[in-house]
């Protein structure tokens, strides 16, 4: 796989990043005077980027094109060029980001209409899009890292958009910090590459990775994985993602469902050449994926906050993707396909949730919903389609992509394969359960609204994107797997797919999955649908439920393992620094002063004592001299 210099329109691929960045700059620097048209500009830049991206993609036909921009930093043997790599993989992401991004921008026009800080909101959104595009377009790891932390910043700003709310501010900080933990892994991986290969460019690294010792490659792979876990909310760094729902709902849709959180998957797919060299690291990726998808699914079953449910669902869906890419060549495409479809239906679901909250005065507790189907038809339908797509209802997008992953898992053929496949299927059942529960609690049953709440359908500027995404959720799977196979499109990146001989016939898998899914739906109906939903969450519940509600105690663990000891350590060190280090110095000064005044006492003022001291001195001097000469 070799890169050619870019040509034609693609030479201006940098505009993809520049446009939204310029938008952000204008909106931030322009201040109040851009308030009136700020949102339009913000949306415009992303739409423009989408169009450009589309055109570039059409010109691409399977090449890997490099856009050299300028020297970022070059000293000694380190040479970091600011350059873009436009290849099928990045093209896919460009389209996802700008496409879904554009829709969500449009949606936000309506959603944030009443917020006086809407302009800044769009600025941040643009900033995010720019950073995300840099992340997927950069042609070296440093560029990736810059985009990587750039999206982190944007996410921080957007989660904390309503920073008057302490919860929002805290959630934003938590997200940033936990991402930083991952970033350390990514950074160390880069250092290791430079130390071993003397380069940080994709081509250089991927070209030479074969020459490295196995241990080193594994180390690099694991460090990269750490970074991926941080960004994608995977175990053990998953705890920040649900809290991130403190941000405005469009943010949750764009950043914490469709695009940013899937960066980890992108990273691993992009680094396929590295992971191909190290089965160990791949195994860890698999484990992480499997664990996370269970955690997410279990936690999702017990949440009452509609956005939290979707958040945990995201966590578990990304778990699927990790599982896929962890499977190696057979899984990359499946994972990416799921990533794309997930991008559609999860974004749609979030937008739907947003529309519901919009109607319910930003109420998020599903126990306060109910019977909204009649009041909000468009939302209900679009949301419903997204729901079906997510649980993998036959022939909707989720069905295709999820099955592909599960098949790939089984295709490993060994015991692990069956285990992973089983887990995946089980999770599919759980997914069906919690999503159905969500549907029932939200749209069906008797209204349990707060007094004074008058649900109403959202304006068309909001519903239009929902409709489009719903369409996407329905068709995407079919299109990407059957009509225009993503596999073919990505061949230049991942090479020819070897025809996998299936250990379990795909049909069997599909049926199995569908049955389990049906079971999930059924149980949900039995538990939630049949009886009245209590307005306040029941207190006396099984340990399992309690654990699920608290997301298997992830936060508790983090607190007791890191936060508390950290705070204690800090307090201790402050004491040490003041009393110990500084105290030593001041102590020395005090000692000098004390000895000074004590010595001063010898200056009694009596002539005779002075004379005595002189005589003593004389004797000492004489003695000393004699000693010297004698000895």
């Amino acid at each position, binding site marked *: 796989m070799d890169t050619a210099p870019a040509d034609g329109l693609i030479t201006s691929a940098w505009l993809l990043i520049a446009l939204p960045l310029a938008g952000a700059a204008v909106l931030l620097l322009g201040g109040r005077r851009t308030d009136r048209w700020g949102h339009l500009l913000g949306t415009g830049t992303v739409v423009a980027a989408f169009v450009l991206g589309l055109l570039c993609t059409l010109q691409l036909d399977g090449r890997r094109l490099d856009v050299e921009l300028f020297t970022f*930093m070059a000293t*000694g*043997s380190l040479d970091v060029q600011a350059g873009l790599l436009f290849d099928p993989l990045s093209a896919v992401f460009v389209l996802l980001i700008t496409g879904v991004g554009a829709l969500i921008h449009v949606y936000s026009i309506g959603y944030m209409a009443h917020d*006086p800080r809407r302009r800044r909101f769009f600025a941040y959104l643009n900033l995010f899009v720019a950073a995300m595009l840099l992340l997927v377009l950069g042609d070296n790891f440093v560029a990736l890292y810059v985009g990587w932390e750039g999206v982190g910043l944007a996410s*921080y700003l957007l989660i904390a958009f309503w920073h*008057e*709310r302490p919860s929002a501010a805290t959630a934003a*900080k938590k997200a*940033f910090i936990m991402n930083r933990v991952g970033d350390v892994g990514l950074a160390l991986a880069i250092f290791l590459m430079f130390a071993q290969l003397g380069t940080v460019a994709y081509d250089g690294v991927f070209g030479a990775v074969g020459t490295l010792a196995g241990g080193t490659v594994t180390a690099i792979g694991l460090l990269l994985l750490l970074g991926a876990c941080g960004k994608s909310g995977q175990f053990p760094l998953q705890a920040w993602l649900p809290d991130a729902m403190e941000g405005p709902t469009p943010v949750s849709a764009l950043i914490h469902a469709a695009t940013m959180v899937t960066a980890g998957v992108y990273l691993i797919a992009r680094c396929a050449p590295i992971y191909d060299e190290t089965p160990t690291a791949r195994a860890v990726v698999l484990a992480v994926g499997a664990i996370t998808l269970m955690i997410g699914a279990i936690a999702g079953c017990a949440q009452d906050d509609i956005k939290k449910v979707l958040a945990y669902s995201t966590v578990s869906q990304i778990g699927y993707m990790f599982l896929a890419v962890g499977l190696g060549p057979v899984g990359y495409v499946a994972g990416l396909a799921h990533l794309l479809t997930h991008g559609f239906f999860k974004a749609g679901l979030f937008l739907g949730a947003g529309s519901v909250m919009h109607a319910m005065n930003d109420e998020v507790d599903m126990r306060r919903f109910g019977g909204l189907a009649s009041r909000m038809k468009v939302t209900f339908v679009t949301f419903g389609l997204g729901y079906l797509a997510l649980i993998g209802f036959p022939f909707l997008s989720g069905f295709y992509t999820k099955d592909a992953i599960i098949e790939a898992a089984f295709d490993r053929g060994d015991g692990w394969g069956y285990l992973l496949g089983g887990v995946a299927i089980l999770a599919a059942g759980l997914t069906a359960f919690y999503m159905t529960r969500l549907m029932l609690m939200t749209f069906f049953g008797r209204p349990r609204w707060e007094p004074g709440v008058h649900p109403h359908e959202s304006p068309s500027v909001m519903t239009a994107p929902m409709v489009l995404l719903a369409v996407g959720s329905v068709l995407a799977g079919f299109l990407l797997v059957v009509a225009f196979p993503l596999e073919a499109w990505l061949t230049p990146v991942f090479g020819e797919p070897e025809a996998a001989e299936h250990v379990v016939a795909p049909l069997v898998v599909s049926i199995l999955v569908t049955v389990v899914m049906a079971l999930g739906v059924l149980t949900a109906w039995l538990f939630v649908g049949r009886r009245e939903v209590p307005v306040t969450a029941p207190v006396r519940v099984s340990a399992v439920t309690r654990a699920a509600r608290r997301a298997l105690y992830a936060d508790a663990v983090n607190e007791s393992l890191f936060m508390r000891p950290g705070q204690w350590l800090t307090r201790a*060190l402050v004491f040490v620094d003041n009393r110990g280090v500084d105290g030593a110095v001041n102590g020395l000064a005090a000692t000098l002063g004390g000895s000074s005044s004590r010595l001063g006492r010898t200056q009694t003022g009596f002539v005779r004592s002075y004379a005595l001291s002189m005589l003593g001195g004389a004797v000492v001097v004489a003695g000393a001299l004699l000693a010297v000469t004698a000895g």
Partner: protein
Amino acid sequence: MNTFPWLLTMIAVPAVGAAVVAALPRGRDESAKRAALGVSLLVLLLAVLATVAFDAGGERFQLTTSVSWIPDFGVDFALGVDGIALVMLLLIGVLVPVVVLASWRDEPTGHRSMKTFFAWLLLLESLMVGVFAATDVFLFYVFFEAMLVPMYFLIGSFGGPRRQYAAVKFFLYSLVGGLVMLAAVIGLYVVSANELGEGTFAFDALRQVEIDPGVQKLLFLGFFVAFAIKAPLVPFHTWLPDSGAEAPIGGAVLLVGVLDKVGTFGFLRYCLPLFPDASRDLAPYVLTLAVAGILYAALLAMGQSDLKRWVSYTSIAHFGFIALGIFAFTTEAGTGAVLYMVNHGIATGLLFLVVGMLIARGGSRQIGDYGGVAAQAPLLAGAFLVACLAALALPGTNSFVSEFLVLVGSFPTRPVFTVLATVGIILAALYALLVYQRTMHGPPRGVLLEPSPETSAPTAGAGGGATATTLEAPAAAPARLRVRDLSRRELAVAAPMVALIIALGVYPQPLIDLIEPAVAATMSDVGADPAGVSPQAPVEGTD
């Protein structure tokens, strides 16, 4: 063009300016300010022109001036800059006008006239230029010590409540270090006299002297202690939080931004080239101090309740990174370290300035006395955020470039230390964002809160807060902040710094090109490959 004595002029201009300002009649503060601003801008212009006259590819020291000063001591008044010194001069040139502007409307403690303040400031600038431009060790020492006096008066006369304690502490710490260094300076002279027959202080001549390793260690330590106190490295750091907290904002900026850089500059300019063997032997210990400092100071920063002390501790952590970069002995890390000196000067400068603006509004240094400022002073909050992001070295800000270079350059030779240091970037995120959240986010609270809660129509800044709080926040406090957002003058202070932070974060290469040759030369002095750690460099994991 190179015949023009740039450096001499850059020393003379502010010195004369100081004299003029000091000579102004009492109460003429306005004119004093204008004069100070003019002079400092002139110096900036000179610095830029000097940079133009400087040929990055040329020989090591350029723009040199040298006249015999004290022949009996073999001392010359020799000036000259390499890339490292030059960028520091640029930093001085940038910071001083900003500081002057920032101190424009300060109401100093007591009834002291601002003109004295600006006179000291300009004198300080002159001496700072001198300390970086000196190529004669004796001359360097003279500037090194003389620099204390203006800073001592800036802290002592215009500082906070505990200024006397802080000033004396600052002076004594530096003096002790300086005196130990004096011993080493003299020793160096004597050694050179024995080696060359004729004693000398000229840097270039001294670099040729072969010094016996044992003696090297002693002399190295002499210099090292002085620089480690200045820089400051843990455990020589406790003076900085006091000075940083008590100094007037302008003084604090120059103290942390430039003065302390003399320490790290000294490592690079004097410790490494003059005592290469000792540097190599003692590097592990220095690196231990450096990394310990990164983690220790970061944790301490989290524990601070005083804004200015907080900034000081973050700086101590950053100095750890600089020291790491210097003593890793690779061109990449060294370049990164020098770049770090500049970037830290700008970033922490902005941090101090913004904190100063906040304190000017609230009249309190306690973090706990502020809250929810962002709601009403978005510009202030924005500037603060940029400063915090630069402090945690976010990509896109200048500090990222330098921190990345330091770490990526240190990793091949010193993996263990580098990994530990890298953990420090998590702590950096913590201490920066913790304080940002406490002061800027959350519901309005603290000293800026109006005693009488009034329910006027929310201004644009607070409106979002209004909707959000009424909708989500439990029992939105009726009491409102009333914070002036940045004034035009304050904008003029913050804007250039923010611009520099981003510009140098996106396109640092020009500075790197200035710095690299000098660093490479230094590294070859300590026997490292000036071409940098070549790929597949044998990784000595034995540190």
